[in-house]
């Protein structure tokens, strides 16, 4: 069940994510060469404001995007009633946002601040 507002939000967040996904994929391909290593990853990201902004934006966009997306599927495929859809959308949004921001905090700022 999409109104124009939700539709626009979903498309705009998708547009924001597109370059971020490409960047992320590139880093991943680079990173997995020689195996994944926590120290190597953290070494690259920790303390970097740029990486923080990069992943911060990613998380905000994806939380919005996926919450709307799951809402649509919950409605069309599982027939959830409209009264549960809005709380569900918010729940997924908040869950993804908080988990995501915590992860971003963990890999970028935690070492610097804590």
């Amino acid at each position: 069940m999409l109104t124009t507002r939700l539709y626009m939000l979903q498309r705009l967040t998708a547009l924001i994510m597109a370059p971020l996904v490409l960047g992320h994929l590139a880093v991943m391909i680079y990173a997995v060469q020689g195996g994944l290593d926590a120290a190597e990853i953290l070494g690259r990201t920790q303390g970097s404001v740029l990486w923080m902004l990069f992943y911060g934006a990613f998380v905000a966009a994806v939380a919005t995007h996926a919450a709307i997306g799951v809402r649509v599927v919950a409605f069309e495929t599982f027939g959830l009633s409209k009264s549960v859809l809005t709380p569900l959308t918010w729940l997924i949004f908040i869950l993804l946002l908080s988990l995501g921001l915590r992860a971003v905090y963990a890999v970028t700022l935690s070492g610097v601040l804590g």
Partner: protein
Amino acid sequence: MIRPHRNHPLWLAFMLHRVSGVALALFLPIHFYVLALALTDPAALNDFFALTENIWVKITEFGLVFLLAAHMLGGLRLMAMEWLPWSDRQKTFAATAVAGAFAISCSFFLSAVSL
């Protein structure tokens, strides 16, 4: 369920996009949880990364990256279709999207296993 009326490329592209979207949404919390281990339990994070040497975990990862790439390309195709003046080449678009996704994830997979 692929009933006869669904048996055409655009419906399959739709289903791929939907399945990949939902799969990504399910994977994300796990992904975030693992990364947050850097904060709470760095050793566990490394143990986890060690797991990635396991071929099954590699295949799962390959799947996820494939889904992300497929979903993104599929999404870009949709937005192109919706916002750019309509073209009848949309079916080719769909195919290209999947092929592109496949190429990216293959390169990822190859680089991951080619040690």
